[in-house]
């Protein structure tokens, strides 16, 4: 490869920044930045999982935030009922998300295009209203998690730095898995289906089975993000499942670059930093954010990763 690969260099820089962030935080005494980036890393994980179905699989799910809630409520409800062990909470969060993905995937994948978008949205809204109706667990007001998941001395989630690194490890682990999956036999079939479903059927692949499995993998990964998010905020409420949150995740993926490994991370970092920065300047931050996103989507096909890739080619 000739010269400097811009997108790789920027990705490496970003990862180095994420790894070294706690160091900066403790040296500068800026605790806020660590809290902010813990949230960014968790949502980047959620965006990465959405990218697996949306970017690689071509399945435009508009209900991905549902898993944030399901993972979160699994932790919150178990904690409320006296099961504080993370070794129970996290597997339950993942299993519940997988099951939800299996059911709504099996139903949603009977449709295509706009209908798929609408039906995934509808299911997520259903989850939202079910959570709102859980009177025992706070209903509309949400549920406070008084004690973070307990990993019996292995790792202390109440320690900011340890928790941050747990989230970062989760994110990198998920990206590693996605990298393996998209280059595997299974991944090629799923990407083939995105490209031309009729062709894949004709060479002998039953489309739906592969798409459903992919849908479940992505949902399970996002359930992990949900469990982490509940620990991060010590709180879970129906609001994390609201459709605008699903929209946020989609924007992160598109902004960073669909179907690229690190694009969603890039998207999450840029989106959430912009939100944070702009909302400090003005109450009407969305008025600036909106056009900004529009410009990137209009002129930077392939999102930030696409832009960087073009810089590369000169």
């Amino acid at each position, binding site marked *: 490869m000739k010269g400097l690969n811009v997108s790789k260099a920027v990705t490496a820089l970003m990862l180095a920044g994420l790894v070294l962030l706690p160091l900066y935080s403790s040296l500068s005494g800026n605790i806020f930045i660590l809290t902010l980036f813990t949230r960014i890393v968790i949502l980047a994980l959620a965006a990465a999982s959405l990218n697996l179905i949306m970017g690689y699989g071509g399945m435009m799910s508009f209900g991905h935030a549902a898993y944030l809630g399901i993972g979160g409520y699994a932790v919150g409800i178990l904690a409320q009922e006296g099961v504080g062990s993370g070794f129970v909470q996290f597997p339950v969060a993942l299993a519940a998300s997988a099951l939800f993905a299996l059911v709504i995937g099996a139903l949603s994948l009977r449709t295509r295009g706009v209908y798929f978008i609408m039906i995934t949205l509808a299911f997520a809204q259903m989850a939202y209203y079910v959570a709102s109706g859980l009177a025992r667990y706070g209903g509309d007001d949400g549920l406070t998690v008084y004690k973070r998941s307990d990993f019996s001395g292995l790792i202390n989630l109440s320690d900011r730095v340890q928790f941050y690194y747990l989230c970062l490890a989760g994110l990198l682990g998920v990206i590693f898995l996605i990298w*393996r*999956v998209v*280059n*595997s*036999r*299974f*991944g*090629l*079939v799923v*990407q*083939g289906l995105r*490209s*031309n479903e*009729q*062709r*894949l*059927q*004709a*060479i*002998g*692949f*039953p489309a739906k089975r*592969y798409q459903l*499995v992919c849908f479940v993998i992505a949902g399970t990964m996002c359930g992990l993000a949900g469990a982490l998010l509940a620990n991060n905020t010590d709180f879970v409420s129906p609001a994390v499942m609201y459709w605008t949150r699903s929209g946020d995740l989609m924007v992160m993926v598109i902004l960073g670059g669909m179907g690229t490994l690190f694009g969603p991370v890039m998207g999450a970092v840029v989106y959430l930093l912009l939100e944070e920065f702009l909302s400090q300047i003005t109450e009407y931050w969305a008025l600036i954010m909106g056009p900004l996103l529009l410009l990137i989507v209009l002129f930077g096909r392939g999102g930030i990763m696409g832009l960087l890739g073009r810089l590369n080619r000169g």
Partner: protein
Amino acid sequence: MADPLLRVEKLVRRFGGITATDNVSLDVAAGELHAIIGPNGAGKTTLISQLTGHLAPHAGTVSLGGRDITYLPAYRRCALGLARSFQITSLLLDFTAADNVALAAQAHAGTSFRFFANARKEKGLRDAAHAALDRVGLSHRADVVVSRLSHGERRELELAVALASKPKLLLLDEPMAGLGVTESQRMVKLLQELRKEVSIVLVEHDMPAVFALADRISVLVYGRVIASGDPAAIRQNDEVKRAYLGDQHVVTHHG
């Protein structure tokens, strides 16, 4: 062999008031190249779609090697040895030529529910892909993304994809469509070679190609088979001349 490789019996498919496939029966013997010709709107593509499983017939049966496949979905037929090429090229545009073919090989080499190992490094699949590409003369273009291939190359790639599934029967839906003169000649030569290895059902408008290649020809007009026989017999058949070759004359005279 008693059973023909492909047997179509009294197939009927209607679209509203139009009977697009009207009691069609035909046999394809193993090793045979059976061409289906007919004027535009004769129902050739409708017939092919029922053979591949993209369209369900209203009556009649299709059997492959003695097994009834009338209502099997497309992907199951493919597993039984039926491969097709599309009239309008249907490939994975953002994949390389080699990846397109390797996926077809993968469909017939064990499960694809493997999530971890890099499929592009599976030697068996890559070898199969390169063999099929080589077969159609495209091996030098293996690593080119399909969207950068020429139309002629894509038609050849369609064929390589179909071959990679090691089919017993190839259904070729107008493989010459849109090809130039030299490209057509290359395609005819290629089919000349392939027919030695695999049975072929060929739907084609290019009459010189059809008469050069086919063992048998069935002529479809308004959904019916009006004649079936070897090329010489079809050439002599009055009804065919009137219904089909006659039309062609009219077209050439006016156009």
